[in-house]
Protein backbone atom coordinates (compact mmCIF):
# COMPACT_ATOMS: atom_id res chain seq x y z
CA UNK A 1 0.00 0.00 0.00
CA UNK A 2 1.37 3.43 -0.94
CA UNK A 3 0.99 6.07 1.76
CA UNK A 4 0.34 9.60 0.50
CA UNK A 5 -0.27 11.88 3.46
CA UNK A 6 -0.30 12.16 7.22
CA UNK A 7 -3.37 10.57 8.74
CA UNK A 8 -4.70 9.41 12.06
CA UNK A 9 -7.36 7.26 13.65
CA UNK A 10 -8.55 6.73 17.21
CA UNK A 11 -8.87 8.94 20.28
CA UNK A 12 -7.26 9.61 23.65
CA UNK A 13 -10.21 7.99 25.40
CA UNK A 14 -9.61 5.22 27.89
CA UNK A 15 -9.58 1.78 26.19
CA UNK A 16 -8.77 3.40 22.83
CA UNK A 17 -5.54 4.07 20.95
CA UNK A 18 -4.66 7.12 18.86
CA UNK A 19 -2.54 6.17 15.85
CA UNK A 20 -0.83 8.78 13.69
CA UNK A 21 0.72 7.74 10.42
CA UNK A 22 3.28 9.63 8.34
CA UNK A 23 4.65 8.32 5.03
CA UNK A 24 8.43 8.02 4.85
CA UNK A 25 10.61 7.78 1.73
CA UNK A 26 11.24 4.34 0.29
CA UNK A 27 13.89 2.43 2.19
CA UNK A 28 13.51 4.48 5.37
CA UNK A 29 11.89 1.55 7.18
CA UNK A 30 9.43 1.70 10.04
CA UNK A 31 9.81 4.16 12.86
CA UNK A 32 7.33 3.26 15.59
CA UNK A 33 6.92 5.39 18.70
CA UNK A 34 4.64 3.66 21.17
CA UNK A 35 3.35 5.11 24.42
CA UNK A 36 1.02 2.97 26.46
CA UNK A 37 -0.50 2.97 29.93
CA UNK A 38 -0.02 -0.80 29.86
CA UNK A 39 3.53 -0.67 28.48
CA UNK A 40 4.86 -2.99 31.17
CA UNK A 41 2.17 -5.63 30.66
CA UNK A 42 1.51 -5.40 26.90
CA UNK A 43 4.18 -3.14 25.33
CA UNK A 44 5.98 -5.96 23.52
CA UNK A 45 2.69 -7.50 22.37
CA UNK A 46 1.48 -4.21 20.91
CA UNK A 47 4.74 -3.60 19.00
CA UNK A 48 4.66 -7.12 17.58
CA UNK A 49 1.04 -6.66 16.58
CA UNK A 50 1.75 -3.35 14.82
CA UNK A 51 4.61 -4.92 12.81
CA UNK A 52 2.53 -7.98 11.97
CA UNK A 53 -0.34 -5.90 10.68
CA UNK A 54 1.88 -3.47 8.78
CA UNK A 55 3.34 -6.55 7.10
CA UNK A 56 -0.16 -7.68 6.17
CA UNK A 57 -1.03 -4.22 4.85
CA UNK A 58 2.20 -4.15 2.87
CA UNK A 59 3.52 -0.99 4.49
CA UNK A 60 7.31 -0.80 4.94
CA UNK A 61 8.30 2.85 5.15
CA UNK A 62 6.29 4.69 7.73
CA UNK A 63 6.43 6.65 10.95
CA UNK A 64 3.81 5.52 13.45
CA UNK A 65 3.08 7.46 16.59
CA UNK A 66 0.79 5.39 18.78
CA UNK A 67 -0.64 6.59 22.07
CA UNK A 68 -2.42 3.74 23.79
CA UNK A 69 -4.85 4.04 26.67
CA UNK A 70 -5.32 0.33 27.22
CA UNK A 71 -7.01 -0.62 23.95
CA UNK A 72 -7.79 -4.26 23.26
CA UNK A 73 -5.94 -5.94 20.37
CA UNK A 74 -8.93 -5.73 18.03
CA UNK A 75 -9.26 -1.99 18.68
CA UNK A 76 -5.58 -1.49 17.90
CA UNK A 77 -6.02 -3.47 14.70
CA UNK A 78 -9.01 -1.38 13.58
CA UNK A 79 -7.34 1.94 14.38
CA UNK A 80 -4.12 1.00 12.58
CA UNK A 81 -5.90 -0.21 9.47
CA UNK A 82 -8.05 2.93 9.34
CA UNK A 83 -5.09 5.28 9.81
CA UNK A 84 -3.10 3.50 7.10
CA UNK A 85 -6.00 3.50 4.64
CA UNK A 86 -6.68 7.17 5.30
CA UNK A 87 -3.02 7.89 4.65
CA UNK A 88 -3.22 5.93 1.41
CA UNK A 89 -6.32 7.87 0.36
CA UNK A 90 -8.61 4.85 0.41
CA UNK A 91 -12.19 5.92 1.13
CA UNK A 92 -14.74 3.68 2.74
CA UNK A 93 -16.98 2.18 0.08
Amino acid at each position, binding site marked *: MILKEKAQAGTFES*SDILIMVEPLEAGAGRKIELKSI*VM*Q*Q*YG*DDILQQLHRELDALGVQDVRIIANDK*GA*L*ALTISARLETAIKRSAGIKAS
Partner: protein
Amino acid sequence: MKNALGIEIPEYIEGMGALEPYKGAWEKLQKGWMDETTVPPPNKAKMPHASKMCETLKDAILKADPHDGMTVSFHHHLRSGDGILVEAIKILAELGIKDITLASSSLTSAHDPILPYLKDGTITGIWSSGIRGELGKAIAEGVLPKPVVIHSHGGRVRDVHTGRIRIDLAILAASAADCEGNATGSHGPSAFGSMGYAAIDSWYAKQVVVVTDNLVDYPCVPPSIRQNYVDYVVKVDSIGDPTKIASGTTRITKSPMDLQIARLAAKAIIASDSFKQGFSFQVGAGGASLAVAKFIREAMKEKEVKGSFLLGGVTSYCVDMLNEGLFNSIFDVQSFDAAVSSSLLNNAYHIEIPAGLYANPFNCGCMTNKLDIVVLGALEVDTDFNVNVITGSEGAVRGASGGHSDTASGANLTVVVCPSFRGRIPIVKKQVHTVVTPGETIDVVVTERGICVNPRRPELRKSLEEAGLPVKDIEVLAEEVEKITGKSKDIECEDRIVGLVEYRDGTIIDVIRQVKQL
Protein backbone atom coordinates in the same frame (compact mmCIF):
# COMPACT_ATOMS: atom_id res chain seq x y z
CA MET B 1 7.82 -20.75 55.86
CA LYS B 2 4.65 -21.03 53.84
CA ASN B 3 1.27 -19.80 55.00
CA ALA B 4 -2.08 -21.53 54.44
CA LEU B 5 -2.32 -20.00 50.94
CA GLY B 6 1.09 -21.45 50.04
CA ILE B 7 2.73 -18.00 50.05
CA GLU B 8 6.30 -17.80 51.33
CA ILE B 9 6.46 -15.66 54.49
CA PRO B 10 9.72 -14.71 56.26
CA GLU B 11 9.97 -16.04 59.82
CA TYR B 12 11.55 -12.91 61.16
CA ILE B 13 11.93 -9.28 60.13
CA GLU B 14 14.74 -7.23 61.64
CA GLY B 15 13.26 -4.63 63.98
CA MET B 16 9.80 -6.20 63.90
CA GLY B 17 10.38 -9.65 65.32
CA ALA B 18 8.88 -13.03 64.53
CA LEU B 19 6.02 -13.28 62.04
CA GLU B 20 3.11 -15.69 62.22
CA PRO B 21 1.90 -17.13 58.93
CA TYR B 22 -1.78 -16.93 57.98
CA LYS B 23 -3.50 -20.19 58.98
CA GLY B 24 -7.06 -19.69 57.80
CA ALA B 25 -9.69 -17.01 58.23
CA TRP B 26 -11.22 -18.26 61.48
CA GLU B 27 -8.42 -20.51 62.74
CA LYS B 28 -7.31 -18.19 65.56
CA LEU B 29 -10.80 -17.02 66.47
CA GLN B 30 -12.33 -20.38 67.19
CA LYS B 31 -10.28 -20.83 70.37
CA GLY B 32 -12.34 -18.06 71.95
CA TRP B 33 -9.34 -16.16 73.32
CA MET B 34 -6.09 -14.78 72.02
CA ASP B 35 -2.65 -15.81 73.24
CA GLU B 36 -1.18 -12.34 72.88
CA THR B 37 -1.64 -10.20 75.99
CA THR B 38 -3.10 -6.71 75.94
CA VAL B 39 -0.62 -3.96 76.78
CA PRO B 40 -1.73 -1.49 79.44
CA PRO B 41 -2.71 2.00 78.30
CA PRO B 42 -0.65 4.78 79.91
CA ASN B 43 -1.51 6.26 83.31
CA LYS B 44 -1.67 10.04 83.15
CA ALA B 45 -2.21 12.92 85.53
CA LYS B 46 -3.11 16.62 85.33
CA MET B 47 -3.29 19.24 88.07
CA PRO B 48 -6.77 20.72 88.74
CA HIS B 49 -7.59 23.60 86.39
CA ALA B 50 -4.34 23.20 84.49
CA SER B 51 -4.75 24.41 80.91
CA LYS B 52 -4.33 22.00 78.01
CA MET B 53 -4.37 24.77 75.43
CA CYS B 54 -1.26 25.27 73.28
CA GLU B 55 -0.61 28.23 71.01
CA THR B 56 0.49 26.24 68.00
CA LEU B 57 0.76 22.65 66.82
CA LYS B 58 4.52 22.99 67.22
CA ASP B 59 4.14 23.99 70.88
CA ALA B 60 1.95 20.97 71.50
CA ILE B 61 4.43 18.64 69.79
CA LEU B 62 7.31 20.11 71.81
CA LYS B 63 5.41 19.41 75.05
CA ALA B 64 4.64 15.87 73.92
CA ASP B 65 8.19 14.55 74.24
CA PRO B 66 9.25 14.27 70.60
CA HIS B 67 12.13 11.82 70.21
CA ASP B 68 13.98 9.69 67.68
CA GLY B 69 12.34 6.35 67.01
CA MET B 70 8.89 7.51 68.13
CA THR B 71 5.58 6.30 66.72
CA VAL B 72 3.19 9.05 65.64
CA SER B 73 -0.41 8.31 64.80
CA PHE B 74 -3.25 10.03 62.93
CA HIS B 75 -6.74 9.20 61.74
CA HIS B 76 -7.76 9.51 58.10
CA HIS B 77 -11.26 10.89 58.59
CA LEU B 78 -10.21 14.05 56.70
CA ARG B 79 -9.53 11.87 53.65
CA SER B 80 -7.91 13.73 50.76
CA GLY B 81 -8.62 17.09 52.47
CA ASP B 82 -6.28 16.38 55.41
CA GLY B 83 -4.07 19.35 56.29
CA ILE B 84 -2.78 18.11 59.66
CA LEU B 85 -0.67 14.99 59.04
CA VAL B 86 1.70 16.66 56.58
CA GLU B 87 1.98 19.74 58.82
CA ALA B 88 2.82 17.63 61.89
CA ILE B 89 5.45 15.58 60.05
CA LYS B 90 7.04 18.79 58.75
CA ILE B 91 7.26 20.12 62.31
CA LEU B 92 8.84 16.89 63.56
CA ALA B 93 11.33 16.96 60.67
CA GLU B 94 12.25 20.58 61.43
CA LEU B 95 12.89 19.54 65.03
CA GLY B 96 15.35 17.02 63.65
CA ILE B 97 13.43 13.97 64.83
CA LYS B 98 14.50 10.82 62.95
CA ASP B 99 13.40 7.23 62.59
CA ILE B 100 9.68 7.94 63.07
CA THR B 101 7.14 5.17 62.62
CA LEU B 102 4.04 6.65 61.04
CA ALA B 103 0.89 4.86 62.20
CA SER B 104 -2.00 6.52 60.42
CA SER B 105 -5.29 4.64 60.19
CA SER B 106 -4.88 5.18 56.44
CA LEU B 107 -3.03 7.41 53.96
CA THR B 108 -4.46 9.20 50.94
CA SER B 109 -3.16 11.22 48.01
CA ALA B 110 -3.22 14.29 50.31
CA HIS B 111 -0.18 12.80 52.02
CA ASP B 112 2.12 12.77 48.97
CA PRO B 113 4.04 15.79 50.38
CA ILE B 114 5.60 13.60 53.12
CA LEU B 115 7.60 11.68 50.51
CA PRO B 116 10.80 13.72 51.09
CA TYR B 117 10.66 12.69 54.77
CA LEU B 118 10.65 9.01 53.78
CA LYS B 119 13.75 9.67 51.71
CA ASP B 120 15.70 11.58 54.39
CA GLY B 121 15.22 9.15 57.27
CA THR B 122 12.63 11.20 59.20
CA ILE B 123 10.09 8.42 58.62
CA THR B 124 11.48 4.89 58.46
CA GLY B 125 8.41 2.76 59.01
CA ILE B 126 4.70 2.91 58.19
CA TRP B 127 1.68 1.04 59.54
CA SER B 128 -1.47 1.87 57.64
CA SER B 129 -4.61 0.39 56.17
CA GLY B 130 -3.97 2.04 52.83
CA ILE B 131 -1.25 3.81 50.87
CA ARG B 132 -1.70 5.52 47.52
CA GLY B 133 -0.25 7.97 45.04
CA GLU B 134 3.43 8.92 45.04
CA LEU B 135 3.93 7.30 48.46
CA GLY B 136 2.67 3.94 47.26
CA LYS B 137 4.89 4.07 44.22
CA ALA B 138 7.99 5.04 46.21
CA ILE B 139 7.33 2.32 48.80
CA ALA B 140 7.04 -0.33 46.08
CA GLU B 141 10.35 0.95 44.74
CA GLY B 142 11.92 0.40 48.15
CA VAL B 143 12.25 3.90 49.63
CA LEU B 144 11.89 2.73 53.26
CA PRO B 145 14.44 0.64 55.18
CA LYS B 146 11.68 -1.36 56.94
CA PRO B 147 8.71 -3.04 55.25
CA VAL B 148 5.43 -1.16 55.64
CA VAL B 149 2.67 -3.09 57.37
CA ILE B 150 -0.79 -3.05 55.82
CA HIS B 151 -3.51 -3.86 58.35
CA SER B 152 -7.29 -3.92 58.22
CA HIS B 153 -9.38 -1.43 60.21
CA GLY B 154 -10.18 -4.11 62.77
CA GLY B 155 -6.62 -5.42 62.71
CA ARG B 156 -5.24 -2.00 63.56
CA VAL B 157 -7.17 -1.95 66.82
CA ARG B 158 -5.78 -5.38 67.68
CA ASP B 159 -2.28 -4.15 66.75
CA VAL B 160 -2.62 -1.32 69.27
CA HIS B 161 -4.13 -3.53 72.01
CA THR B 162 -1.32 -6.07 71.66
CA GLY B 163 1.43 -3.47 71.46
CA ARG B 164 2.53 -4.21 67.90
CA ILE B 165 1.78 -0.54 67.38
CA ARG B 166 2.86 1.48 70.44
CA ILE B 167 1.75 5.04 69.87
CA ASP B 168 3.92 7.71 71.47
CA LEU B 169 2.01 10.65 70.06
CA ALA B 170 -1.47 10.76 68.54
CA ILE B 171 -2.40 13.94 66.70
CA LEU B 172 -6.14 13.90 66.23
CA ALA B 173 -7.89 16.46 64.06
CA ALA B 174 -11.47 17.38 65.01
CA SER B 175 -14.00 19.72 63.43
CA ALA B 176 -15.12 20.85 66.89
CA ALA B 177 -13.41 20.58 70.28
CA ASP B 178 -13.37 22.29 73.65
CA CYS B 179 -10.46 23.42 75.82
CA GLU B 180 -10.34 20.06 77.65
CA GLY B 181 -10.15 18.00 74.47
CA ASN B 182 -13.69 16.71 74.16
CA ALA B 183 -13.92 16.53 70.39
CA THR B 184 -16.13 15.52 67.48
CA GLY B 185 -16.22 15.44 63.71
CA SER B 186 -19.99 15.78 63.49
CA HIS B 187 -20.25 19.58 63.28
CA GLY B 188 -18.26 22.69 62.50
CA PRO B 189 -17.08 24.22 59.21
CA SER B 190 -14.82 21.20 58.50
CA ALA B 191 -17.28 18.53 59.68
CA PHE B 192 -16.32 15.02 58.60
CA GLY B 193 -18.66 12.80 60.62
CA SER B 194 -17.62 9.80 62.67
CA MET B 195 -14.24 9.68 64.44
CA GLY B 196 -14.39 5.89 64.69
CA TYR B 197 -10.77 5.20 63.76
CA ALA B 198 -9.37 7.76 66.20
CA ALA B 199 -10.86 6.27 69.38
CA ILE B 200 -8.18 3.62 69.92
CA ASP B 201 -5.43 6.21 69.44
CA SER B 202 -6.94 8.43 72.11
CA TRP B 203 -7.11 5.53 74.59
CA TYR B 204 -3.62 4.17 74.03
CA ALA B 205 -1.26 6.93 72.92
CA LYS B 206 1.24 8.15 75.52
CA GLN B 207 0.47 11.71 74.41
CA VAL B 208 -2.76 12.82 72.75
CA VAL B 209 -3.07 16.15 70.99
CA VAL B 210 -6.47 17.29 69.68
CA VAL B 211 -6.24 19.80 66.83
CA THR B 212 -9.28 21.78 65.77
CA ASP B 213 -10.17 24.77 63.63
CA ASN B 214 -13.35 25.25 65.66
CA LEU B 215 -12.85 25.69 69.40
CA VAL B 216 -16.30 25.60 71.01
CA ASP B 217 -17.51 26.50 74.50
CA TYR B 218 -17.17 23.72 77.06
CA PRO B 219 -18.48 21.07 76.72
CA CYS B 220 -18.14 19.98 73.10
CA VAL B 221 -21.09 17.72 72.31
CA PRO B 222 -21.10 14.90 71.36
CA PRO B 223 -17.72 13.98 72.88
CA SER B 224 -16.54 11.40 70.34
CA ILE B 225 -13.09 11.83 71.89
CA ARG B 226 -13.25 12.38 75.65
CA GLN B 227 -11.20 14.78 77.74
CA ASN B 228 -9.81 12.21 80.18
CA TYR B 229 -7.64 10.83 77.37
CA VAL B 230 -6.43 14.15 75.94
CA ASP B 231 -3.17 15.84 76.94
CA TYR B 232 -3.17 18.98 74.80
CA VAL B 233 -5.52 21.00 72.61
CA VAL B 234 -4.53 23.26 69.73
CA LYS B 235 -6.66 25.73 67.81
CA VAL B 236 -5.43 26.17 64.25
CA ASP B 237 -6.82 28.22 61.34
CA SER B 238 -7.60 25.18 59.25
CA ILE B 239 -7.49 21.41 59.61
CA GLY B 240 -7.68 20.97 55.86
CA ASP B 241 -9.65 21.63 52.72
CA PRO B 242 -13.37 21.24 53.57
CA THR B 243 -14.32 20.64 49.93
CA LYS B 244 -12.08 17.55 49.91
CA ILE B 245 -12.89 16.47 53.47
CA ALA B 246 -16.60 15.99 52.79
CA SER B 247 -18.75 17.49 50.13
CA GLY B 248 -22.43 17.30 49.27
CA THR B 249 -23.97 13.91 48.80
CA THR B 250 -22.61 10.81 47.12
CA ARG B 251 -24.20 10.16 43.74
CA ILE B 252 -24.86 6.78 42.22
CA THR B 253 -22.57 6.02 39.29
CA LYS B 254 -23.81 6.61 35.75
CA SER B 255 -21.34 4.16 34.23
CA PRO B 256 -23.39 1.58 32.31
CA MET B 257 -20.83 -1.12 33.14
CA ASP B 258 -20.97 -0.44 36.90
CA LEU B 259 -24.76 -0.30 36.80
CA GLN B 260 -24.94 -3.59 34.94
CA ILE B 261 -22.65 -5.26 37.49
CA ALA B 262 -24.66 -3.73 40.35
CA ARG B 263 -27.96 -4.89 38.86
CA LEU B 264 -26.64 -8.45 38.61
CA ALA B 265 -25.22 -8.31 42.13
CA ALA B 266 -28.55 -7.11 43.52
CA LYS B 267 -30.35 -9.98 41.76
CA ALA B 268 -27.87 -12.43 43.27
CA ILE B 269 -28.40 -10.98 46.75
CA ILE B 270 -32.18 -11.10 46.39
CA ALA B 271 -32.03 -14.72 45.23
CA SER B 272 -29.92 -15.69 48.27
CA ASP B 273 -31.38 -16.61 51.65
CA SER B 274 -29.58 -13.65 53.26
CA PHE B 275 -32.06 -11.14 51.81
CA LYS B 276 -34.77 -11.48 54.44
CA GLN B 277 -36.67 -9.50 57.06
CA GLY B 278 -34.27 -7.89 59.51
CA PHE B 279 -31.13 -8.31 57.44
CA SER B 280 -28.05 -6.17 58.05
CA PHE B 281 -26.13 -4.64 55.19
CA GLN B 282 -22.89 -2.90 54.28
CA VAL B 283 -21.85 -1.43 50.94
CA GLY B 284 -18.73 0.42 49.95
CA ALA B 285 -18.80 3.95 48.55
CA GLY B 286 -17.21 2.92 45.26
CA GLY B 287 -19.00 2.95 41.88
CA ALA B 288 -20.56 -0.47 41.43
CA SER B 289 -20.77 -1.35 45.12
CA LEU B 290 -22.79 1.75 46.09
CA ALA B 291 -25.00 1.21 43.04
CA VAL B 292 -25.98 -2.18 44.49
CA ALA B 293 -27.64 -0.24 47.33
CA LYS B 294 -29.84 1.54 44.79
CA PHE B 295 -31.25 -1.73 43.46
CA ILE B 296 -31.54 -3.27 46.95
CA ARG B 297 -33.41 -0.16 48.11
CA GLU B 298 -35.92 -0.57 45.26
CA ALA B 299 -36.33 -4.28 45.98
CA MET B 300 -36.85 -3.69 49.71
CA LYS B 301 -39.70 -1.29 48.93
CA GLU B 302 -41.23 -3.59 46.35
CA LYS B 303 -41.02 -6.73 48.48
CA GLU B 304 -41.71 -4.90 51.75
CA VAL B 305 -38.51 -6.14 53.37
CA LYS B 306 -37.27 -4.12 56.34
CA GLY B 307 -33.63 -4.35 57.39
CA SER B 308 -31.96 -4.19 60.79
CA PHE B 309 -28.79 -2.10 60.57
CA LEU B 310 -26.46 -0.53 58.04
CA LEU B 311 -22.78 -0.66 58.88
CA GLY B 312 -19.49 0.81 57.91
CA GLY B 313 -18.32 3.61 55.80
CA VAL B 314 -21.56 5.54 55.52
CA THR B 315 -22.74 7.60 52.57
CA SER B 316 -25.75 9.88 52.25
CA TYR B 317 -27.36 7.02 50.38
CA CYS B 318 -27.38 4.97 53.62
CA VAL B 319 -28.84 7.96 55.46
CA ASP B 320 -31.67 8.16 52.92
CA MET B 321 -32.49 4.49 53.51
CA LEU B 322 -32.51 5.06 57.30
CA ASN B 323 -34.83 8.06 56.89
CA GLU B 324 -37.17 6.06 54.68
CA GLY B 325 -37.47 3.47 57.43
CA LEU B 326 -35.84 0.73 55.35
CA PHE B 327 -33.33 0.12 58.14
CA ASN B 328 -33.61 0.64 61.93
CA SER B 329 -30.19 2.10 62.47
CA ILE B 330 -26.77 2.98 61.11
CA PHE B 331 -23.53 2.11 62.86
CA ASP B 332 -21.01 4.59 61.54
CA VAL B 333 -17.24 4.14 61.86
CA GLN B 334 -16.48 6.53 58.99
CA SER B 335 -18.69 9.01 57.15
CA PHE B 336 -18.19 9.77 53.49
CA ASP B 337 -20.09 12.96 52.79
CA ALA B 338 -21.38 16.14 54.36
CA ALA B 339 -25.00 14.99 54.62
CA VAL B 340 -23.87 12.11 56.85
CA SER B 341 -22.40 14.42 59.51
CA SER B 342 -25.72 16.13 60.17
CA SER B 343 -27.54 12.80 60.40
CA LEU B 344 -24.91 11.50 62.84
CA LEU B 345 -25.40 14.63 64.95
CA ASN B 346 -29.20 14.68 64.89
CA ASN B 347 -30.49 11.11 64.57
CA ALA B 348 -30.19 8.96 67.70
CA TYR B 349 -30.32 5.81 65.56
CA HIS B 350 -27.31 6.92 63.53
CA ILE B 351 -24.67 5.71 65.95
CA GLU B 352 -20.97 6.52 65.96
CA ILE B 353 -18.85 3.44 66.72
CA PRO B 354 -15.11 3.02 67.35
CA ALA B 355 -13.11 0.82 64.99
CA GLY B 356 -12.74 -1.89 67.66
CA LEU B 357 -16.49 -2.32 67.95
CA TYR B 358 -16.70 -2.18 64.17
CA ALA B 359 -14.21 -4.85 63.26
CA ASN B 360 -11.58 -5.91 65.82
CA PRO B 361 -11.53 -9.74 65.63
CA PHE B 362 -10.33 -10.09 69.23
CA ASN B 363 -13.18 -8.99 71.45
CA CYS B 364 -16.53 -10.52 72.37
CA GLY B 365 -18.11 -9.71 69.05
CA CYS B 366 -17.42 -6.90 66.62
CA MET B 367 -20.26 -5.64 64.45
CA THR B 368 -18.90 -7.10 61.23
CA ASN B 369 -19.61 -10.49 62.83
CA LYS B 370 -23.30 -9.64 62.80
CA LEU B 371 -23.40 -8.66 59.13
CA ASP B 372 -25.70 -10.55 56.81
CA ILE B 373 -24.63 -9.03 53.51
CA VAL B 374 -21.61 -7.00 52.44
CA VAL B 375 -20.78 -5.73 48.95
CA LEU B 376 -17.10 -5.03 48.29
CA GLY B 377 -14.90 -3.94 45.40
CA ALA B 378 -11.63 -5.45 44.16
CA LEU B 379 -8.51 -4.54 42.20
CA GLU B 380 -7.98 -8.21 41.32
CA VAL B 381 -9.69 -11.53 42.09
CA ASP B 382 -8.10 -14.91 41.45
CA THR B 383 -9.61 -18.28 40.65
CA ASP B 384 -9.37 -19.22 44.35
CA PHE B 385 -11.51 -16.13 45.09
CA ASN B 386 -8.60 -14.37 46.84
CA VAL B 387 -8.94 -10.60 46.53
CA ASN B 388 -6.29 -7.93 46.07
CA VAL B 389 -7.25 -4.41 47.11
CA ILE B 390 -3.76 -3.09 47.79
CA THR B 391 -1.39 -3.36 44.81
CA GLY B 392 -2.04 -2.09 41.28
CA SER B 393 -1.25 -3.70 37.96
CA GLU B 394 2.32 -2.38 38.04
CA GLY B 395 3.07 -3.57 41.56
CA ALA B 396 2.76 -0.18 43.28
CA VAL B 397 0.84 0.14 46.53
CA ARG B 398 -2.31 1.95 45.48
CA GLY B 399 -5.25 0.95 47.58
CA ALA B 400 -6.45 0.13 51.03
CA SER B 401 -7.20 -2.99 53.02
CA GLY B 402 -9.78 -1.02 55.01
CA GLY B 403 -12.64 -3.12 56.29
CA HIS B 404 -12.44 -5.49 53.30
CA SER B 405 -11.17 -8.59 55.08
CA ASP B 406 -13.02 -7.74 58.32
CA THR B 407 -16.45 -7.59 56.70
CA ALA B 408 -15.75 -10.50 54.33
CA SER B 409 -14.89 -12.66 57.34
CA GLY B 410 -18.00 -11.63 59.24
CA ALA B 411 -20.77 -11.47 56.67
CA ASN B 412 -23.00 -14.42 55.82
CA LEU B 413 -22.96 -13.32 52.20
CA THR B 414 -19.86 -11.55 50.89
CA VAL B 415 -20.32 -10.22 47.38
CA VAL B 416 -17.40 -8.82 45.38
CA VAL B 417 -18.34 -6.59 42.46
CA CYS B 418 -15.79 -5.76 39.78
CA PRO B 419 -15.46 -5.61 36.01
CA SER B 420 -13.82 -8.72 34.58
CA PHE B 421 -11.13 -6.48 33.08
CA ARG B 422 -10.32 -2.73 33.22
CA GLY B 423 -8.87 -1.09 30.14
CA ARG B 424 -6.80 -4.00 28.98
CA ILE B 425 -5.87 -5.26 32.43
CA PRO B 426 -7.50 -8.53 33.56
CA ILE B 427 -9.21 -8.28 36.95
CA VAL B 428 -10.39 -11.87 37.22
CA LYS B 429 -7.24 -13.97 36.74
CA LYS B 430 -5.34 -17.07 37.82
CA GLN B 431 -3.32 -15.39 40.52
CA VAL B 432 -3.56 -12.00 42.20
CA HIS B 433 -0.39 -10.01 42.82
CA THR B 434 -1.17 -9.55 46.52
CA VAL B 435 -3.78 -11.30 48.67
CA VAL B 436 -5.54 -9.06 51.19
CA THR B 437 -8.79 -10.96 51.66
CA PRO B 438 -8.67 -14.77 51.54
CA GLY B 439 -10.95 -16.57 49.09
CA GLU B 440 -12.52 -18.69 51.80
CA THR B 441 -14.32 -15.55 53.04
CA ILE B 442 -15.67 -14.55 49.61
CA ASP B 443 -18.95 -16.10 48.51
CA VAL B 444 -19.74 -14.52 45.15
CA VAL B 445 -17.87 -12.52 42.53
CA VAL B 446 -20.14 -10.53 40.22
CA THR B 447 -18.82 -9.20 36.92
CA GLU B 448 -20.43 -7.89 33.74
CA ARG B 449 -19.70 -11.30 32.20
CA GLY B 450 -21.40 -13.40 34.81
CA ILE B 451 -21.52 -14.46 38.43
CA CYS B 452 -18.98 -16.83 40.02
CA VAL B 453 -19.97 -18.66 43.21
CA ASN B 454 -17.35 -20.01 45.57
CA PRO B 455 -17.46 -23.83 45.40
CA ARG B 456 -17.71 -23.75 49.22
CA ARG B 457 -21.29 -22.52 48.72
CA PRO B 458 -22.99 -25.10 46.46
CA GLU B 459 -26.45 -24.32 47.91
CA LEU B 460 -25.98 -20.66 47.00
CA ARG B 461 -24.96 -21.57 43.48
CA LYS B 462 -28.13 -23.65 43.21
CA SER B 463 -30.32 -20.73 44.36
CA LEU B 464 -28.75 -18.37 41.84
CA GLU B 465 -29.09 -20.87 39.01
CA GLU B 466 -32.72 -21.49 39.91
CA ALA B 467 -33.27 -17.73 39.77
CA GLY B 468 -32.02 -17.84 36.17
CA LEU B 469 -28.85 -15.86 36.86
CA PRO B 470 -25.76 -16.23 34.63
CA VAL B 471 -23.57 -18.37 36.89
CA LYS B 472 -20.21 -19.56 35.58
CA ASP B 473 -17.08 -21.20 36.96
CA ILE B 474 -14.44 -18.65 37.87
CA GLU B 475 -11.76 -20.60 35.93
CA VAL B 476 -13.92 -20.34 32.81
CA LEU B 477 -14.37 -16.61 33.33
CA ALA B 478 -10.62 -16.09 33.87
CA GLU B 479 -9.88 -17.90 30.60
CA GLU B 480 -12.53 -15.92 28.77
CA VAL B 481 -10.97 -12.68 30.03
CA GLU B 482 -7.47 -13.73 29.01
CA LYS B 483 -8.75 -14.45 25.51
CA ILE B 484 -10.03 -10.89 25.25
CA THR B 485 -7.11 -9.03 26.82
CA GLY B 486 -4.24 -11.28 25.82
CA LYS B 487 -1.87 -12.66 28.42
CA SER B 488 -0.41 -9.86 30.50
CA LYS B 489 3.26 -9.98 31.40
CA ASP B 490 3.81 -10.60 35.13
CA ILE B 491 5.09 -7.79 37.30
CA GLU B 492 8.83 -8.23 37.75
CA CYS B 493 9.90 -8.10 41.38
CA GLU B 494 13.10 -8.20 43.40
CA ASP B 495 13.43 -10.55 46.39
CA ARG B 496 13.41 -7.66 48.85
CA ILE B 497 10.21 -7.36 50.87
CA VAL B 498 8.87 -3.80 51.06
CA GLY B 499 5.49 -4.56 52.61
CA LEU B 500 3.75 -7.09 54.83
CA VAL B 501 0.03 -7.66 54.52
CA GLU B 502 -1.37 -8.52 57.91
CA TYR B 503 -4.60 -10.47 58.07
CA ARG B 504 -7.07 -9.11 60.63
CA ASP B 505 -5.94 -11.68 63.24
CA GLY B 506 -2.31 -10.52 63.06
CA THR B 507 -0.98 -13.36 60.91
CA ILE B 508 0.78 -12.53 57.65
CA ILE B 509 -1.29 -13.33 54.58
CA ASP B 510 1.06 -11.98 51.92
CA VAL B 511 4.16 -9.88 51.30
CA ILE B 512 4.77 -7.05 48.84
CA ARG B 513 8.08 -7.27 47.03
CA GLN B 514 10.09 -4.42 45.57
CA VAL B 515 9.22 -3.85 41.91
CA LYS B 516 12.08 -4.15 39.43
CA GLN B 517 13.02 -0.78 37.95
CA LEU B 518 12.78 -1.03 34.20
